[in-house]
C-alpha cells in the first residue's frame, strides 16, 4: 500500500504525529533444533502504512491473525519490523539514536485487553502507576506521589486506592489503573489493544467515555485495536481494515461506515451483530476461514472468500487507490 499523504477530510487539519510506511514483519518458520533451517515465513504484517494525527484515534479492525496486534507491537517497539519504517514527528524511530528512542518510548504507551494480566499482581497501585515515571523521570518521591494521586483522580479512582494491590479491584477499575499508568508520562500516543472487550457490558461504556474524555483533555492520540465495529465507530476518527497482514481499506470513520467499498469490509459489517432486532442487514456470510499467513493466497489475499471474485484477483495483487478523498481501498473492483 502506498502512503496516503493527505490532509484530514474532517475539515480540521491536525498534524500527523506518527506515520508507518510499508511496515512488514515476517516470522521465520524453522525446522530442526540443533541446525535449524528456515523453511518459510509467516507474513504477519505485509506492507502496512497508516498515519496517526494528534488528538485523533485510528482504529485497526480485523479478525484474529490479520496482523493488527503485530502492527501494534511494532509501534510499541516490542517487535522490530522486518522492513519499513515508523516516523514519529518526522523522525524514523528505528534509525534514531538512544535519546531519540527513549523519547519515543516515553511518548507511546499502551493499554492491553486483559486487565488481569496487565498489572503486576505483586506491586501496589502506587508503584504500578509510578513505574514509568521512576524509570524515565528524575522526580522526588513526594512529587511522584502527588502525580499518582492526581492520575488516580483523573481516571475516577480515589487516593486511598494507591496502597491496594490489583487483585482488590474489579475488572473495570483495573482497566482504569492501566489507563492511569499509561497516562503517567504524558504520552502523545496510547495504543489501546481491545481495551474494553474483557469487561462487563455495563462497564464498557464507562471506560470508553473515560478514554474519550482523556483524549480531549490531553490531546493524546489513540491507536485502537478492536474487532467490534460499533466500538470502533464510537471511538475512532479513522479506521484501517486489515486482512492477512495488509490494510485493505482505510478511511475516515463516517465515510467507512456509510460507504464501505472493499468486499471484506462489507462482509465484516454484515456479520456484525445488529443493535436492534428490526435492523435490516445485508447477509454476506463469508465461506471458509482466514487462510494461514504462512501460505497466503496468490494475488489478492481475500479472493478465495470474496463474493465478487474476478479472474485477475487470483494472480494480480491489487493496488491501493484513493477512490474518494481520504478513502483508500485495495481491490480490483475499483
Amino acid at each position, binding site marked *: 500500500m502506498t502512503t496516503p499523504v493527505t490532509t484530514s477530510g474532517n475539515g480540521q487539519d491536525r498534524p500527523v504525529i506518527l506515520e508507518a510506511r510499508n511496515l512488514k514483519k515476517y516470522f521465520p518458520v524453522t525446522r530442526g533444533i540443533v541446525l535449524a533451517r528456515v523453511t518459510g515465513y509467516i507474513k504477519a504484517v505485509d506492507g502496512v502504512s497508516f498515519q496517526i494525527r494528534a488528538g485523533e484515534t485510528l482504529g485497526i479492525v480485523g479478525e484474529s491473525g490479520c496482523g493488527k496486534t503485530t502492527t501494534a507491537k511494532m509501534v*510499541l517497539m516490542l517487535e522490530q519490523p522486518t522492513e519499513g519504517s515508523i516516523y514519529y514527528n518526522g523522525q524514523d524511530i528505528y534509525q534514531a539514536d538512544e535519546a531519540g528512542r*527513549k523519547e519515543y518510548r*516515553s511518548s*507511546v*504507551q*499502551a493499554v492491553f485487553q486483559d486487565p488481569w494480566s496487565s498489572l*503486576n499482581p505483586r506491586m501496589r497501585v502506587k508503584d504500578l502507576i509510578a513505574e*514509568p515515571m521512576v*524509570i524515565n523521570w528524575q522526580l522526588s518521591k513526594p512529587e511522584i506521589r502527588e502525580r499518582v494521586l492526581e492520575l488516580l483522580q483523573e481516571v475516577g479512582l480515589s487516593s486511598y486506592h494507591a496502597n491496594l494491590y490489583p487483585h482488590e479491584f474489579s475488572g473495570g477499575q483495573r482497566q482504569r489503573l*492501566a489507563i492511569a499508568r499509561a497516562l503517567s508520562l504524558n504520552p502523545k500516543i496510547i495504543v489501546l489493544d481491545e481495551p474494553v472487550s474483557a469487561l462487563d457490558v455495563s462497564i464498557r461504556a464507562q471506560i470508553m467515555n473515560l478514554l474519550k474524555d482523556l483524549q480531549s483533555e490531553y490531546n493524546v492520540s489513540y491507536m485502537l485495536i478492536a474487532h467490534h465495529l460499533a466500538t470502533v465507530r464510537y471511538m475512532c476518527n479513522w479506521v484501517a481494515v486489515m486482512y492477512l497482514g495488509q490494510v485493505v481499506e482505510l478511511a475516515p470513520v463516517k465515510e467507512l461506515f456509510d460507504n464501505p467499498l472493499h468486499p471484506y469490509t462489507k462482509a465484516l459489517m454484515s456479520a456484525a451483530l445488529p443493535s436492534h432486532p428490526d435492523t435490516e442487514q445485508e447477509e454476506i456470510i463469508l465461506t471458509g476461514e482466514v487462510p494461514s499467513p504462512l501460505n497466503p493466497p496468490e494475488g489478492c489475499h481475500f479472493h478465495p472468500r470474496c463474493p465478487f471474485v474476478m479472474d485477475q484477483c487470483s494472480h494480480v495483487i491489487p493496488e491501493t487507490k484513493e477512490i474518494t478523498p481520504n478513502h483508500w481501498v485495495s481491490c480490483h473492483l475499483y
Partner: protein
Amino acid sequence: MAEVSTTLSRSRLRFPSWQTIRYVLRRWPVAPIAILIILVIVGVAAPLFAPFDPLRVDLPARNTPPFWVPVETELRTVKQTVDKLSEEDRLNISLRNARKIKEDAAVGDVISVITTPAGSFKHLFGTDQTGRDVLSRVIFGARVSLMVTAVSLTSGVVIGVAMGLIAGYADQIFPKYGKHLDEAIMRVVEITFAVPVILVALVIVIVFGKSFIVLLGLLAFVAWNAFPRNVRAEVLTLKTSDYVALARISGASSFRILFVHIFPGVLNTVLVIATLRVGQLILIEAILSFLGAGVQPPKPAWGAMVADGREYLGSAWWIAFFPGIGIFLVVMSLNFLGDWMRDRFDPRLRQLD
C-alpha cells in the same frame, strides 16, 4: 437475606463453633505447621530442652526402655549348668546366675527373671546401648539435621534459582548467545538428574574423607537441581506476560524487568519446591548417616542413630524408633505443607470456598 446476615454477624462474637474449627483445620495445615514449629524451637534451643548431655555415657543404665514400658520378667528353671547355645536350655538358668537374683535358689526351682528393666521418667525415651539418653540425642539430632539442611538448602536455592533465572532470561540480556546458554544450563541440570546420588556420595566420601563440609557440599548438590527447571518455566511465562510487555514499553531495562517483575513472581514456586526439598534433604542426610557417610558419631544425627539402633532392634527397639519417628514426622509435615502451599499459590487451583 437479612436473616442470614444477622446470624452471621452474631456468630462472630461467639467462641468459634465446631464447624469453624473443622473448617480451619481443613483449610490450613495446622498440624504440620505445629510439628515443624515445635521441632525448630526444640532444635534451636536444644540445650534447654535436653535433660542430659547427649554424649554422656552411663553404662549401668544402658538399654533402659521408654518410661511407659513395665518391667518384663520370665520364669526360668534353675539348673546346675546351662549351655547358652543350646535351644533346650533357653528357658533355664544356671545356679550361679540364679543365686544373684535369689540367694537361696536351688537346682530345680522356678524363679522369675527380669529380662528388661522398667522404664523410668528419668529417661523418657530410654537409653541406648551405652546408656546415653535417647530423648536428648533426638533433640540434639534435630539441631544437627536442621543445620545441615539449612546450610545446604540455602546454597542450593541460591545456585538453583540463579541458574533458572539465567536460563529463562538469557536471551533478553544476551540476544546472541542467550539460547545456547539456556540450552547448556538445562542439559547440565538434566545430567545431574541422572546421577545416582547415594552411590556418588559414598564414592566421594571415600575419596575426600568423612567431613562435615563434604556432607554439606553433597547435600547442596542434591538441593540445587530441582530449582532451575521450574524457575526457568516460570520465567518463560512471566517474560511474555502483559505486565512485562508494559514495563518494556515504559522503558524498563532488562535488569529492572528481571528483578522487579520476574524475580518476585518466581518466589512462590521457589518456596514450594524448597519446602518439598527439605524433606528429601533430611531423608538423604539420614540415609548417608545410616550408611556411615554422613554425620559422624558420636555426634547425634537421626540417620546415624537409626543405623546404631538397627543392631538392637530385637532387644531395644527404642534406640532406632524415636529418631525414625523424628525423620518421619518432619518429612511428612514438610510434604503436607509443600503440597498445601503449591495448591494455595497456584491460582489455577484456587477454589471458591
